[in-house]
């Protein structure tokens, strides 16, 4: 069979290309990066936090550092938090901090007073009274300014002191626990990185916990009760569920969407790339006039189908290699890939990916080879190929609708439209499984129209590939169809 000669040659010619080998290897590497990076970043990105505690109250540091609770130890290991005591406690500093706290409190009080007076001002009708109240507000505001300024001074003083300490010493941050922690219920944290909310939240809840159990211990002096209270005031975890129409899934909706867009991009770009490859191959043969020799040995039908099948097999080889690599890596639990990603790649999804790749490839390669046969130069080809690219793009745009409303009529009909089926139906399947009837219908429709296109394409190809020189008009192309 001569078609095998063509298939073999086209297949070999692509598979032997350097670009094929590079793309086959590089794509999984990039995919890997895409999957692993987020997990990797959170792991690598968390460096150990040495937190120095300056405890003026003497209630907290001991319990923070020498913790016996296993759960807490595990949590701290995970967050890479290490507490250490600093014998940096001196009276002078203590006074400053107490003064600082005192200022904060009085500033707060003044603010409250101003607010209260303002409320009274609003209600007062008498002009004289109003003026008197306004005077009071002015005085208070003046006082507020003064105190704020003083606070600011101490603030920068403290900052300066601890900045030097944080930078000089190998310490992530200083945690200052004031003498009257029980009353002010406030700790001060000096660090280069203050936006690590996980750490911040953890420390504040730990301190609160220690504080409350210490106070309880002092007042009640009964460890049993303290334990009960401890147990009763445990933190509540906030776990989210995204509810969708169709099937519900636990919080992985965004990653499912990401995955389906990701797979769609691969589907789209592979079909595009191989389509263009066919187109350029046809143009090369046409320009070289190799086609005349080919036609003198075999017919255009054989050439047309041989080409499409040969290049298609090369594409399939590449995709299968990717799937194999993907299966090996995703199968390894030790790599710690997010469950929402491994969960996405069910055998069914992979199966449908292959099915729609094959259908999409044949559909578009037929179209691309028609374009290749009808034109003479690469530039002309790009002009004609642009609408094909748009045809494939439309489903990507509709695709955004798919994730929100996968079963609205417009999406359903669009996914049954053969030219959109390969991408859109695959996207629907990956987001929310449509009925089997719809899937089969879409596959049947698109196979039927691919066969029709191939029949049409072979005819146009036959005449087009031997037409040199001028760009054919649509009218002429239609005439070609009528040749027997």
């Amino acid at each position, binding site marked *: 069979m*001569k078609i095998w*000669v*063509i298939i073999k*040659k086209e297949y070999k*010619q692509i598979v032997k*290309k350097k670009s094929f080998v590079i793309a086959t290897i590089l794509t999984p590497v990039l995919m890997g990066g895409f999957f692993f990076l987020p997990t990797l970043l959170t792991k690598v990105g968390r460096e150990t936090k040495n937190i120095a505690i300056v405890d003026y109250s003497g209630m907290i540091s001991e319990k923070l550092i020498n913790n016996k609770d296993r759960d807490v130890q595990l949590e701290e290991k995970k967050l890479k938090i290490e507490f250490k005591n600093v014998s940096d406690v001196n009276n002078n500093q203590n006074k400053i901090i107490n003064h600082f706290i005192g200022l904060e409190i009085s500033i707060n009080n003044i603010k409250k007073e101003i607010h209260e007076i303002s409320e009274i001002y609003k209600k007062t009708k008498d002009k004289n009274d109003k003026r008197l109240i306004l005077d009071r507000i002015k005085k208070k505001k003046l006082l507020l300014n003064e105190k704020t300024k003083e606070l600011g001074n101490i603030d920068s003083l403290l900052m300066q002191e601890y900045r030097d300490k944080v930078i000089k010493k190998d310490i992530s941050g200083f945690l200052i626990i004031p003498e009257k922690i029980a009353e002010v219920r406030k700790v001060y944290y000096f660090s280069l990185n203050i936006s690590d909310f996980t750490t911040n939240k953890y420390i504040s809840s730990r301190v609160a916990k220690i504080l409350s159990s210490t106070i309880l211990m002092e007042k009640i002096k009964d460890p049993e009760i303290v334990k009960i209270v401890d147990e009763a005031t445990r933190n509540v975890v906030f776990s989210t569920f995204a509810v969708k129409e169709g099937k519900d899934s636990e919080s992985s909706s965004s990653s499912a969407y990401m995955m389906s867009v990701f797979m769609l991009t691969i589907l789209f770009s592979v079909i595009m790339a191989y389509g263009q490859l066919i187109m350029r191959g046809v143009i*090369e*043969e046409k*320009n*070289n*006039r*190799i086609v*005349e*020799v*080919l*036609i*003198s*040995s*075999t*017919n255009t039908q054989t050439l047309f189908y041989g080409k499409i099948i040969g290049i298609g097999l090369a594409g399939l080889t590449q995709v299968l290699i990717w799937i194999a690599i993907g299966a090996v890596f995703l199968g390894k639990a030790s790599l710690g890939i997010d469950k929402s990603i491994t969960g996405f790649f069910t055998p069914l999804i992979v199966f449908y990916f292959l099915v729609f790749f094959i259908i999409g490839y044949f559909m578009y390669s037929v179209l691309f080879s028609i374009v290749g046969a009808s034109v003479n130069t690469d530039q002309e080809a790009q002009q004609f190929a642009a609408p094909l690219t748009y045809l494939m793009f439309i489903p990507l745009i509709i695709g955004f609708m798919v994730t929100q409303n996968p079963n609205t009529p417009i999406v359903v009909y669009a996914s049954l439209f053969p030219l959109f089926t390969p991408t859109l139906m695959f996207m629907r399947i990956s987001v929310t499984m449509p009925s089997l009837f719809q899937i089969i219908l879409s596959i049947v429709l698109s196979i039927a129209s691919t066969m029709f296109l191939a029949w049409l394409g072979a005819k146009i190809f036959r005449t087009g590939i*031997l037409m040199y020189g001028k760009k054919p008009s649509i009218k002429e192309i239609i005439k070609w169809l009528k*040749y027997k």
Partner: protein
Amino acid sequence: MDENALSLENLVKEFDGKKAVNKFSLKLKKGEILGLLGPNGAGKTTTIRMIMNIMVPDSGKVQIFGKPFSEKTKDILGYLPEERGLYRKLTIIETLEFFGKLKGMKKSVIDSRGMKLLKKFDLADHKDKKIEELSKGMAQKLQFITTIIHEPDLLILDEPFSGLDPINIELVKDIILEKKKEGVTIIFSTHLMDYAEKIVDSVIMINNGIKVLEGRLDEVRAKFGNKILHLNYSGDADFVADLENVKKVRDYGNEMEIELIDMKYKDKILKQLIGKLSVNSLSITEPSLNSIFIGKVKDNEVK
């Protein structure tokens, strides 16, 4: 069984209202060589493309070994198109394998025959090179090999000599003659008539899509051309054209072809030349296809 390897009947092909080939017929006996001659744009390539079924004639009939063109005939045809082209990324060996297999050959046969031909064409040392690394001449030779590797019964060569240097033209000519000895029928087109007349059995001349002349080479010469006085000279020869009994003169500077009204006047003419020109050599020759053709085309235009 038809003894004609190729017969064309009233082929017509029109492009945009202009007849590129008009009622063209020919019959080519098995084992003969036919030269399809004519200037550029005469319709030679269009005719050949119609033989090869690359173009469908508007009307007329093509028969190869007595049968219409079909998939089966393809394996016994060797076709060298006017514009050469091979896959740039394939090596010489891969190229031979691909085109050989397309003609239904087995790999072992391709290898043994291919190596023989590569040696003959001095390409054996380059057999693993890619086409894009070859010189234009080498690629031409390779293309010629792909045309004959399957030992076709009918060779159709469109301008087989173009793009080749004199040594390789000789080589191709030798191969064509060798093939003839093997009983292969050959039709080739060229506008280089000097090469054609050395190897063809018969010729067809075509101009503006119309056959202007056909026949066996000797017949054509006898019928359409007079013998010619060929001289190699030095001096100013402008006066020769004005002499009595001289029909036509082609002056090449130091060579001159003089066509007389009749050969009997040759001595008279020679006498008039002596003293005015220094004659280095003198011969009486058959008319060249070139001169016959130019004469014929001019006659046509006058009509």
